[in-house]
């Protein structure tokens, strides 16, 4: 059983997870050797999957749980978490 890295994320930018922030998330997720998922109220989306994340429907204030496994799980989790913390470069 590989170790799972778990993190709590909050959508803090004003417009929520619309196309542009999600594009950034998928790009990052694809750049690591890790399986990353985002989970909202029990619904799970692959972090490499743009449409699946959009479909999670995350306006500002949404809480998500990130789970990462694989050789670069920690790095992937940290980088994506910091993207959320910087509000994807938005307001």
């Amino acid at each position: 059983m590989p170790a799972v890295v778990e993190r709590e994320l909050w959508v803090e930018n004003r417009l929520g997870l619309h196309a542009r922030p999600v594009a950034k998330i998928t790009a990052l997720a694809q750049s690591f050797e890790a399986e990353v998922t985002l989970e909202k109220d029990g619904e799970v989306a692959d972090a490499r999957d743009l449409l699946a994340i959009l479909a999670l429907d995350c306006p500002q204030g949404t809480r998500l749980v990130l789970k990462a496994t694989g050789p670069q799980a920690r790095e992937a989790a940290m980088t994506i978490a910091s993207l959320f913390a910087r509000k994807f470069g938005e307001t």
Partner: protein
Amino acid sequence: MTQNRILQGIPASPGIVVGRAQVFTEAAQISTRHLYTAKDVAEEQEWFREVVEQIEAELTRLKNEISEDLKEHAHILDLHLLILRDRMLYNETLRLIQEENLNAERALHQAYLKVKELFQRIGDKHIRGRIADVETVYRRLMGRLTGKDSSKPFSFKEPAIIVARDLSPAETTQMSNVQVLGFITERGGKTSHTAIIAHSLEIPAVVGLDHATLEIETGDLIILDGITGVVILDPDDSLRRIYQARRADFEIFKSEVVLGSAMAAVTNDGLPTRVMANIEMPEEVALVFKYGADGVGLYRTEFLYLRQRHLPTEEELFQDYKQVVEALAPRVVTIRTLDIGGDKFLSHLEYAPEMNPALGLRAIRFCLKEQKIFRTQLKAILRASAFGQVRIMFPLISSPREMQEGRELLESVKKELKKDKIPFDAELPVGAMIEVPAAVTLADLLTQYADFFSIGTNDLIQYALAIDRVNQQVADMYQPLHPAVLRMVREVVQAGRQAGISVAMCGEMAGDPLYIPVLLGLGVEEFSMNAMAIPVAKRVIRMTSLERAKEFAQKALLLHTVEEVNDYVTREMDRLFPDIFRFGRPLANKLAK
């Protein structure tokens, strides 16, 4: 084909053009084939991958070649590139070919339907709307797979009017290289992508024209009138001449209006007025400059409270307000405090839904009850006032008591700020929104408690005439020129004038060029409206004399019924300002929500 056939659509971008049609039709029907051998499957997957690669290359090239004036739309192409390789579309199609032995078209179609179904459940309408981008990519792929390519680059040589079911961003961006005279689409409304693109290219567009791609054929000569939404097929010579002349008139009118938007709005007998913008978000400051507003007459502040699931902090509010106030200084920014009801409010406040929210706990009533929320907002507004010219106004005032209480709270927040040595404008004017009939009747008393009035016509008309304009059964009884409304406006203006405080008007009535001369005649000297309506409003004001407007208003006030007033005003406006009537209203309302 019969001559002079008239079709009616929705006007989406003003302007008139006569030209030849270029029709773009949909991709063909989707066929289903079953794949029997592993070799078939492998070939089908290979074919699909190849098509995706082709389209990927095309979109990438398109993105790099995109012309300067459409650069801002480049991110849409980036999004399409991502969707193209998205797992739910790309991987799923490959999987369906492999596991279900489906041909590529059918597999893609099934994958697309699944995405579509998922998106229908999304609550946020902006995100839900992204399905349009998925559809564009889907159509592009499907066109290539079926061989009936609906998305090959536009290749016509002659300038043409584009006719299509709908236009995607990728399609419209390709058009910058060819000369497009105008757009006609079957789908879409005033705020559709086609409308927005047509505006930025300043070409006419008619949308929502049913069966346009069936009625019109490539090569047909058509007249496109983006002002009225009329499309005329195969017009005869005399009709063409009429429209050529109309086109010339419109172009002259438009250039004059645009030229005049930066100039002050002074009546032709010398009365200076203020034409202000209604805004909702800091991003709209750019529009305030673009359309020549003298300031902001109504800054709606609900957005931050509705958008997020937690209450906005003082700092978040302050940053928003400061951004607007600072950018616009020394112009006035009129901030309306929270105009929201307990029921519509966030889930962390426990208010039951109301039977009659328009008459319920909302606006100033709500704020005086939820003082903590109100104080936070007042504090943010006061802090922002140190960076420019701020006015504050309370919505839904119905008694002097509410003004008193609001002002007392404001004073106590000022004390706190003073104690903490945080700067603010100590002289910040405090106004009352006049939108409840009770406030009209008490206007003379309210002048003792308010530094200015702003008449909110949307609510005032609704309350005065007891009309809910969302209710289809009675919506046509919602009449801004109702004699009762005109008399109320007169009463408020007179009360303000006697006390020496200014009276502004915000709400849709203030931005409609048809009503402006009457309102001027009633004594309104400050108008606040959707920014895009400003250039036309300024032009109307400059063409009107105060003397004339007063006579106009006096006569209107003598009439007994709203029908008589409507007839009178329409007739007079048509006589005095034929251009405004023909072109000004469509131009002022363009893109208005």
